[in-house]
Structure formats: structure tokens, C-alpha cells
């Protein structure tokens, strides 16, 4: 049963296992440094569908189906699925998952959804209210551009601080298989807003949320950054990562040695024209499920603090001049169950 350590942090005493995981990405992500680690790279960004929204749904459905089959299960074995995406009303998720007929809990945490969904699924498994639970999220560059920015073919210039929404999805199946990777603890962040209004600087908008959540996790658990092989933020990119390290330094916490960011890992920043790095729900989801979880399973990494970050704005609030609130949730994933 889970132990409530503080207002934010919950220890999962039975250390639920990530029994299987899968990742599918688009062409650009497949050409990146982690390309060979994903389950499948689809060179056709339409995923064989007629609209970008359907493409994203297909991407998410294929990814979760892959994760379920890798666990030697069928959709009927999954008791709950926790999922979300970036599109209005989370239609990427709902239309993708409707055929699977799994009891569904929809989440919106913007790009923090992978950590949010793993946290929820982990807590359900830890407390024996489910035998198998799945968590999945996705993002698609084209559907995100259409909703949040400009039409794809519009000729505009991006600022150096802007980030590239990943066409990617990651999914996990969590149960009590008793094999690594294990979920040891979760820290639920609070909404943080330090007044960033630049929609082309999401990393800066989200860094205070990551700062809060990492600080809380370390304080609540009595751990130091050195207790982790890797503190992995979701999609802070170049600017947000610098700001996070600076913010934590002011508290006397130095994570510069063991911090990395999924948005900096997914693409080759020098070659792939993504400016400040990757972003989107699928960015942290695919890096976690394609690369990091393998490393934990194989014992290369022992303890990872996965901190997915989200920017909780909409195009409407941005047009109205509102600042961009951020959120971050942390998951301690370990190769050891205790």
C-alpha cells in the first residue's frame, strides 16, 4: 500500500514494475541520436491516415497495443488505462483508444502527461485496485502546429528559444511482475507561474515547475541529486534546462552533473534544426520508453528521477495575454525494488 510522505510525495511500497513499454516515433525523431532504440520509426508522418488528428490517434493506439503485446497480454487484461495528449478534448487519445475497450481515465497534463499517467497507474497497482494498468501519451508535430501555431506550409521563422513538437508516443504497462524497472515514488507538482508570456519560450515557462517538483522530491525523501544516476526532465530544452539548474543552484542543490533533458536527447540540436530542443508529450514519453527504461532494465542506470514538464496554456489564453503556467511531476524509477 502507498505511503503518503507529504502533501506532494507518495512512496509506492510494493514497487510496481513497468512490465513492458513501447515507443513509436516519426521520421525526424528516427533520424535523431536515439533512432535505433525505438520500437518502430514510421517514415510516413500520416501513419496512413487522412487527417493529422487521426494520424496521432493511430500513433497512440499502435504504441499502446505494442506495449500490451510485449507484456504478453491483450487489451482485455488491462484494468485501467491512463492517457492524454495535447489536442483539444484529448481527441488524439480518445479516438485512438476507443476500439481497445479498456476502462479509460483521461488526463491532461500537457507535456507532463507521461509522468502523470505513470504516477496514477503506479498508485493504482500499488494499492491493488488493478492487476494491470497502462499509461500512454503522444504528440504529433503536424496536429500540434495546426492547433497551437500556424498551418504547416505557412512560411514563418522560429525564434532560437522555440522548440520542436515531437511526433512520438510512449506507452507502459504496469503490474506486480517483480522485475525492473520499478516505480518507487511519485511527487505530484503544483502549478507554477513566474509570468512568462512568450509562447516561443516554453522551456522558460516550465522550468519553475520542474524546480519546485525536484526540490520537493529531494526534500520529502531526504535524497540528494547524487542518489540518482540521472535526473531526467521532459522538455525544458536548452533554455529551460539552464534556468532549472540555475534555480536549483540558488537553493544550494547542484544537479548539473546528473541532469539531462529528453528534449535535448531526442534530436541532434546541431543538425536537425529544432532550435532549443524537442517538446510535446511524446518527447519525454518516447525517450523514456525507447531508451531510458532499457537502460534501467539492463542495469546501466540504477536510479532515475523522471520529471516530465508541461505548459498549461491554450492558444486562447496566449492571445489574451495571459502568462503560461507550468506543471511537473516526478517519478522515481529504479532497477532495485527496495
Amino acid at each position, binding site marked *: 500500500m502507498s505511503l503518503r510522505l507529504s502533501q506532494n510525495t507518495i512512496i509506492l511500497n510494493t514497487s510496481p514494475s513497468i512490465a513492458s513499454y513501447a515507443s513509436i516515433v516519426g521520421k525526424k525523431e528516427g533520424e535523431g541520436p536515439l533512432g535505433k532504440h525505438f520500437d518502430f520509426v514510421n517514415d510516413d508522418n500520416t501513419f496512413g491516415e*487522412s*487527417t*493529422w*488528428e487521426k494520424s496521432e490517434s493511430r500513433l497512440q493506439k499502435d504504441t499502446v497495443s505494442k506495449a500490451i503485446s510485449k507484456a504478453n497480454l491483450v487489451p482485455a487484461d488491462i484494468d485501467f488505462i491512463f492517457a492524454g495528449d495535447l489536442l483539444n478534448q484529448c481527441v488524439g487519445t480518445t479516438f485512438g483508444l476507443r476500439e481497445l475497450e479498456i476502462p479509460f481515465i483521461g488526463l491532461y497534463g500537457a507535456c507532463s502527461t507521461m509522468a502523470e499517467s505513470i504516477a496514477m497507474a503506479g498508485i493504482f497497482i500499488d494499492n491493488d485496485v488493478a492487476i494491470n494498468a497502462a499509461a500512454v501519451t503522444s504528440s504529433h508535430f503536424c496536429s500540434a502546429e*495546426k492547433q497551437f501555431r*500556424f*498551418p*504547416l*506550409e*505557412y*512560411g*514563418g*521563422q*522560429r*525564434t*532560437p*528559444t522555440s522548440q520542436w513538437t515531437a511526433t512520438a508516443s510512449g506507452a507502459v504497462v504496469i503490474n506486480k511482475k517483480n522485475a525492473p524497472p520499478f516505480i518507487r515514488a511519485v511527487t505530484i507538482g503544483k502549478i507554477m507561474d*513566474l*509570468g*512568462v508570456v512568450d509562447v516561443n*519560450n516554453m522551456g*522558460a515557462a516550465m522550468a*519553475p515547475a520542474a524546480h519546485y517538483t525536484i526540490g520537493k522530491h529531494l526534500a520529502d525523501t531526504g535524497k540528494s541529486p547524487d542518489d540518482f544516476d540521472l535526473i531526467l526532465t521532459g522538455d525544458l530544452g536548452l*533554455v529551460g534546462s*539552464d*534556468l532549472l539548474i*540555475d*534555480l536549483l543552484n*540558488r*537553493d544550494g542543490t547542484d544537479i548539473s552533473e546528473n541532469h539531462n533533458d529528453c528534449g535535448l536527447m531526442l534530436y541532434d540540436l546541431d543538425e536537425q534544426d529544432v532550435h532549443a530542443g524537442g517538446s510535446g508529450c511524446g518527447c519525454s514519453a518516447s525517450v523514456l520508453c525507447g531508451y531510458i527504461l532499457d537502460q534501467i532494465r539492463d542495469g546501466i542506470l540504477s536510479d532515475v528521477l523522471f520529471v516530465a514538464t508541461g505548459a498549461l496554456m491554450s492558444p486562447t489564453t496566449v492571445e489574451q495575454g495571459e502568462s503560461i503556467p507550468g506543471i511537473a511531476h516526478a517519478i522515481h524509477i529504479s532497477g532495485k525494488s527496495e
Partner: protein
Amino acid sequence: MAVDKIEYDKMMKKASPNSKAYINIPLAFIIGGLICVLGQFLMTSYEKLGISTYFSGTVASITLIFLSALLTGLNLYDNIAKHGGAGTLVPITGFANAVVAPALEFKAEGLILGLGAKLFTIAGPVIVYGVTASVIYGIIIYIFKLV
């Protein structure tokens, strides 16, 4: 130590790189200039073909609009604009691109509520304020002529 919004704004500005104006401005000049050279070439060519000077400008504009729409449809215009910036935005080609791009994007939502309604999402403000500015300009001319 808690950081307030003013302090964070300072930190953010320090951490955020600015656009590379020393690259963007010359590129805008060169690419925008090349579009204008092409326009002049078309005008002169049309005049040589016997079209009057008055109409050759209009036909040249129509040709540039067509080329921009074609390049937008072939997924090429945005790749040029990525380097051209204001150089591809300001000429009439930029306006054509701003109309064709949403037409392509929103046709999935149908011809009425998709393409029809969203055709001018980017170009609309240009038309509104362009017309408004020309009305104001007309009034100024009118008043000065009276004086």
C-alpha cells in the same frame, strides 16, 4: 530561495538567445530582393510581349501569386521562408502563402467550416488593417487637397 517574477524575468532574458539579426536581416534583403528582381523581370518580359506598362505590373503580380501558391502546395515555400524571413513575408508572395497554407491545412474540416472559414486566419488581419489604413490615408489626402 524563492525567485520572484521580476528576478525570473532577468534570469530568463539572460538564458534566452536572441534571433541572429546579422544573419536574418541580410538574408531577408537578398531573398526579398531576388523576389523583387523576379517581379521586375516578369514585368519587363510582359512589356516586351506587348502588354502595356500599366497592366504588366498586374500580370507580374498575378504570376508571383501563382508561383507562391504553387511552391506552398509543393511544400517548398516554408523552406525558403525559413531563411528568407521578412524577405518572403513582405512581398505579395508572402500574402499568397498566408492564404494557401490555411487552405491546405483546414480542408480536412470541410469546404465551408474548414477551408472557407479559416482561409483568412492569417491574412485576415492584413486585409482589415490594410483597408483601414488606406481609408485613413484617403481621408488625409482629401483634407490636404481641400486645404
